[in-house]
């Protein structure tokens, strides 16, 4: 799922710090704005915009964090509005809903663990590529 690769160059101290911060960003925003999934994406997006002129290593990790947050937004938004509709409308609690919520929780916990792991390793200057997101980032982010 998570592959450690050698980056095209050896990132500097401040570059590693910035790249690691892009992952921390989503975690901090998660605590600050737990019920609304879009806040995380916005926080990561603004961080990406702030670093769009940064070095390749920083931009690469900002893009990976942004992509992971984007898929989180889609999955979490469906879960969020489904729950709201059950609470406030005539929609009933079904097995499908419970199954979906379990999937959402599993996905969130996996993403949460992966983000913490990546933030720690990126801070040390290690280049960490995620399954699927890593390849996608390679396509989007060019040196």
């Amino acid at each position, binding site marked *: 799922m998570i592959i450690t690769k050698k980056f095209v160059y050896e*990132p*500097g*101290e*401040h*570059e590693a710090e*910035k790249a690691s*911060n892009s992952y*921390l*960003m989503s975690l*901090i*925003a998660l605590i*600050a*704005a737990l019920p609304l999934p879009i*806040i995380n994406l*916005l*926080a990561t997006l*603004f*961080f990406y915009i*702030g*670093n769009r002129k*940064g*070095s390749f290593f920083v931009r690469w990790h900002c893009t990976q964090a942004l992509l992971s947050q984007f898929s989180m937004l889609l999955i979490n938004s469906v879960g969020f509005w489904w729950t709201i509709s059950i609470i406030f409308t005539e929609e009933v609690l079904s097995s499908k809903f419970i199954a979906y919520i379990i999937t959402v929780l599993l996905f969130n916990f996996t993403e949460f663990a992966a983000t913490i792991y990546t933030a720690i390793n990126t801070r040390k200057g290690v280049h960490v590529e995620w399954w699927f997101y890593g390849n996608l980032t390679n396509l989007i982010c060019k040196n």
Partner: protein
Amino acid sequence: MDSQKVDMFIMSNGKFFESHQVMQIRDRLIELDDSKWSVVQTMQFKDPTISLIVSLLGGSLGIDRFLIGDTGMGIGKLLTCGGLGIWTIIDWFLIMGATREKNLEKLQQVL
């Protein structure tokens, strides 16, 4: 310029710049004409740690952005109450890098 002078400058001002840019700055300073040394030597740079402290205390009013010279962003932050708190949090992580970039821009005006 004399490499000893440049090394002395890097030693005392290195913390104001991104670590990966320090070597480029050193090379460019060595190529620089001796007449500009007095200008370079007397330049005042913003401390990234100070801007982080200001960001933590007055980030929601945009004071950190005013401090580093981003007046437009500062006003934007002030009017939106720190982007409803989100921008403030993002800036806690961005401000040190932004300060170092501003310092580099300032130095580049002389180089």
